[in-house]
C-alpha cells in the first residue's frame, strides 16, 4: 500500500516536473535541427517561474470561467498522471478509470479552455476555440477506434491491463494492426497536443493560431498553469504512446530495481518519441486548417484498418 502510494506520488512528480523539461528538450532539438543553438532545455522552468511572479492582467469582460480554467486544466492533467501507467503495470488509482475516462478527462480540459477562449470576447479567442474544437471533435473517433484496436488485442480497455498483457506479448510489433493503431494514435496525439502539422506552438501570427489564440488573453500565474498543463499533456500522450504500444521495461512489481529500470525505460521511450516529434516538426510544414480533417480522416482509416485486421486475422 505504501509502495503504491509512493509510486503514485512519483508518477505525479514525474509528470509535473518533467513536463517542462520535455517541452524544453523538444525545443532544443528543434533549434539544433534548424541550425540554431536554442535555449537551454531548462528554459521552460525559467519561463514558468517568471510568469508566477508577474501580475495577472485580466480582461474586464471575463467571468470566473476565465480564472477557473487554468486551475481546472492543470488539475485534470495532474489527475490524468495518476491514471496512466508509467512505471509499473499497477497504478493504484488506475481503477478510477480506463482509457476512455482518460480521454474524456482531457476533453473536459479542452472544453473549459475553449470556453475561456470565448470569455474575453476577443475575436482571436473565439477563433481559437472554434478551431480547437473542430480538431478535437474530429480526433475523437480516431482515438476511440485506436483504443478499440488495442482493446481487441488485449481484451481490455483498462490501461493497466493493456500494459501488462502487452508486455507479455513478445510478438507485439509483428502485429500489423498494432502498428497501424500506433501510427493513428500518434497522429491524433500530435493533433491533441497542438503540434505540427496541425498547429504550430511557436507561431506569432494570430490568424494561424489554434491553441495559442485561445490563451492569448492569459498572463501571469494563469498563463503559467496553462503552459505547464500543455507540457503535461504532451508528456502524458507520449507516455501513453510508449507504454501502450511499446510496454517494454515497465515494472511488474513495486520493488526498487524494476521501478528504476522502468524509469530509465520511460525516459528513453519518451525521449525517443520527443525526438520524433521534433524531427517531424522540423521537416514538415503546418497544414492549412481545412486540410487537417483530411489528415485526421487518414489516421481514422488507419485505426479502422487496425480493427479490421484484428477481425480477419483472428
Amino acid at each position, binding site marked *: 500500500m505504501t509502495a503504491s502510494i509512493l509510486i503514485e506520488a512519483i508518477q505525479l512528480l514525474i509528470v509535473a516536473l518533467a513536463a517542462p523539461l520535455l517541452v524544453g528538450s523538444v525545443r532544443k532539438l528543434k533549434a539544433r535541427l534548424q541550425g540554431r543553438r536554442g535555449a537551454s532545455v531548462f528554459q521552460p522552468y525559467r519561463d514558468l517561474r517568471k510568469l*508566477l511572479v*508577474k501580475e*495577472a*492582467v*485580466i*480582461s*474586464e*469582460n471575463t*467571468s470566473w470561467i476565465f480564472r477557473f480554467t487554468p486551475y481546472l486544466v492543470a*488539475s485534470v492533467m495532474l*489527475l490524468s498522471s*495518476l491514471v496512466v501507467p508509467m512505471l509499473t503495470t499497477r497504478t493504484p*488509482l488506475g481503477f*478510477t*478509470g*480506463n482509457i*476512455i*475516462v482518460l480521454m*474524456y*478527462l482531457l*476533453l*473536459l480540459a*479542452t*472544453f473549459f479552455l475553449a*470556453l475561456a477562449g*470565448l*470569455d474575453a*470576447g*476577443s*475575436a482571436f*479567442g*473565439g*477563433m481559437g*476555440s*472554434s478551431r480547437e*474544437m*473542430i480538431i*478535437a*471533435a*474530429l*480526433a*475523437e*473517433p480516431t482515438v*476511440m*477506434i485506436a*483504443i*478499440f484496436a488495442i*482493446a481487441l488485442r488485449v481484451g*481490455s*480497455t483498462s490501461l493497466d491491463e493493456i500494459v501488462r498483457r502487452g508486455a507479455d506479448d513478445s510478438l507485439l510489433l509483428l502485429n500489423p494492426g498494432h502498428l497501424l493503431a500506433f501510427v493513428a494514435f500518434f497522429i491524433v496525439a500530435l493533433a491533441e497536443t497542438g503540434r505540427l502539422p496541425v498547429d504550430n506552438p511557436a507561431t506569432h501570427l494570430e490568424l494561424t493560431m489554434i491553441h495559442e489564440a485561445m490563451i*492569448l*488573453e492569459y498572463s501571469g*500565474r494563469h498563463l*503559467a498553469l496553462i503552459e505547464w498543463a500543455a507540457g503535461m499533456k504532451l508528456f502524458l500522450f507520449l507516455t501513453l504512446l510508449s507504454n501502450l504500444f511499446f510496454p517494454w521495461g515497465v515494472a511488474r512489481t513495486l520493488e526498487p530495481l524494476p521501478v528504476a529500470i522502468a524509469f530509465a525505460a520511460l525516459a528513453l521511450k519518451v525521449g525517443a518519441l520527443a525526438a520524433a516529434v521534433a524531427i517531424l516538426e522540423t521537416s514538415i510544414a503546418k497544414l492549412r486548417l*481545412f486540410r487537417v480533417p483530411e489528415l485526421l480522416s487518414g489516421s*481514422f482509416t488507419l485505426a479502422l484498418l487496425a*480493427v*479490421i485486421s484484428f*477481425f*480477419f486475422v483472428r
Partner: protein
Amino acid sequence: MTINEALMLNLLAGMLSSFGAGAIGALLCARWPRAARVVGHTFALLGALLALGLGLAGLAGGTVSVSIAQVLPIGGVALGVDRLSAFFILVIAVAAVPSAIYALGYTREYEGRYSLAGMGAALNLFLASMSLVVMARNALTFLALWEAMSLASYFLVMTERDDRETERAGWLYFVMTHAGFACLLVGFLLLSHATGSMEFAGWQAGAAAVTGTTRNLVFILLAVGFGSKAGVIPLHIWLPQAHPAAPSHVSALMSGVMIKLGIYGLVRVGFDWLSGGPAWWGGALLLVAAISAVLGVLYALVEHDLKRLLAYHSVENIGIILFGVGGGMLFQTYHLPALAGLALIAGLYHTLNHAVFKSLLFMGAGAVLHATHTRNMEEMGGLIKRMPQTAVFFLIGSVAIAALPPFNGFISEWLTFQSLLLSFQIPDKAVNLTFALSVAALALTSGLAAACFIKAFGISFLALPRSEHAESAREVGFSMRAAMALLAVACLVLGVAPFTVLKFLSKTTSELLGATPDMQFTWNRIVTGGSFATVSPLWIAVALAALLASIPITLRVFRANTARRYYETWGCGRAVQTARFEYTATSFANPFKRVFSVLYRPVKELAIEFHPESRFFVRTISYSNEARSIFDDAIYGPLNRMLRSFAQRVRLLQSGNVNVYLLYILVALVVLLVIAR
C-alpha cells in the same frame, strides 16, 4: 423492503387524482389567471411527486395491475407496473417535478396574454397520460393514452398561439406524431391479429409464433411509429420546430421525457413483445442511431436559436440511447443476454440522464428567453454576469450533455462505449464492423457535442452582451432557479453515484432479459465485461476537487504573485471594444460547416453595398450562411409537393359543371357494372 400492492394502488390513485384535480381546477379558475396558474401547477407538482413515489416503489419491486372493463371497449383499460414501466415513470417524474416548480414562476408573464387555464389543464393531462401510457397493458389503452399524450402536448406547443411559426410548428408536430400513431396502429393491429390477443401479455406469449414477413413488418411499423415520437432522423423534422415553439418547461418535458416514450416503445418491442429478432433489426437501429447522433449534433452546431439547438441535441441523444438499445438487440440475437443487459442499461441510464440534463438546459434556455426575450444566440452574450446562477446551472447542463466527467452524461456514455466495445464477442465480421463504426460515430458525436455546447454556453453567456436585450437581462425568479438547482444537483449525483440507479436498472434488465447484465458495481466503482473496463466516478470527482484545491494553495506556498489587474480585452490596441468584435455563433460554427459541407450543403450569400463615391468604402455588408436540410429537400419537400399537386389535380374534378358531375355518376355506374360482371 417489500412494497405491497395497496401502497402502489394508493400512489397511482393519488397521482391520477392530483393530475385530475389540477386539470379541472385550472379550468374552473379560467377567469382568474393567477389562480389557474397556481392551482394547475401545484397539483401538477403534487402529482409528479406521487409519480416519483410510484416509480421508486415500482423499481423497488412493487407491482400493481388495474383493469377496468367498463371504460374503453374491447378489453377495457388495463394498467400494470413492472420494473421497466416504473423506470420510465421515474424518468417522467424526475423531469416533471422541477418542471412544475419552474412553471410556477415561468408562466407568470403569460397572465393575461395566454390561457393559463387551458395550459394548466393540458399540462396535467400531459403528465397524466405520459405516466399512464407506460403502464398500459393492452393495445387500445396504449393507443388511446398515446394519442391523448400527443394531443395534450399539441395544446402545450400551441400555448403561445399568436405566432404563425407556432401554428406551423404545432401543425407539423401533430401531423408527424399522428403519422407515427398510424404506424403504431397498423403494427399493433397486425400483431394482435397474428397473436390473437390485444393484451401485451398475450403478445409476448404468442410472439414466437409470429414469423416471416409479418414479424418483420410489425417491427418496422412499430419502429417507425416509436421512432417518429423519439425523433430519430429522418423522422425528426417536427422536433426542432415544436420544441422552440413550446413554453420552456414544456420543451423540457417534451424533449426530456416525451420523446423517451418512443424509446420505451422500442424497448418493449425489441425485448418484450417480439422478444428478439434477426440481426438486421439491431443493425438497422444502430445505423439509425449513428445517423441521428451525428447528424443531430451537426445540425445543432449550425443552429443559432438556443432552443432549437437543444432540440437538435435531443435528436443526437436519442441516437446515443439507441446505440444502447440497438446494441442490446444485436447481443440478444447472438444469445449474449449478459451483454444485452449491459447495453440496455447504458441506453436506459442515458435516457434518465438525458431527461435530467436536457430539462435543465431547456429551463436554462427558458430563463434566458425570459430575461432577454430572444432565442437568437447572436443577440445574447454576457449573461453570466447578469444571471450568474442560471449561468452556473446551464454550464452544469452543458458539461453533462457533453458527457464530461464528473457529471451524469459521462457515465451513461461510458457505459455505452463499453457495451459497444465488448461487441467483439459476436462471431460475425459484418456485425463487428457495424459496431466499430458505431463506436466511431459515438466518439465523433461526443466531440461535436462538446464543441456545440461550448458554442451554446460561450456565445450566450460569456463575453459582452450582443444586444440591448441581453444588456438589460436580470436573474430570474426563485422558483425557476430552484427547479434548475434541483436538476443541476441531480446531474452531479447521477454522475458521481451511479450505483443508486444501476442497482435498479440491473434488476429491470434482468427482469426483461432473464439474465444478469455483464457488470459489477459497488458504491464507488463500476466494472464491465469481467475486467474489461472500470470506472470510479466518485474518485474522479473527489480527486479532481482535491487537486483543484491544492493548486492555489501550492501557488501560495511558493509565493506566486496573486495580484490581479483588470484591463480591456487585448485587441491589438484598437480604440474600443464592442460586442461586434466578438466571435459570433455563425463564425464559431463556420469551420464545422466547411468540413461537413457535404451534409450541410450551405447556401452562402454575401451582399456588400459600397459607398457611391468609392468602392473602397463599404456601407453595409450582410453575410448569411444557411445550412439546408437534406431531409426537407429529399423527403418531406417532394412528399409535400406531391400530395399538394395531387390534391390540386383532384380538385379539378370539382369543376362546378353539373354535366360533368352527371358524367361521373355515369362512369361510376359503368365501371361498377363492368367490375360486377
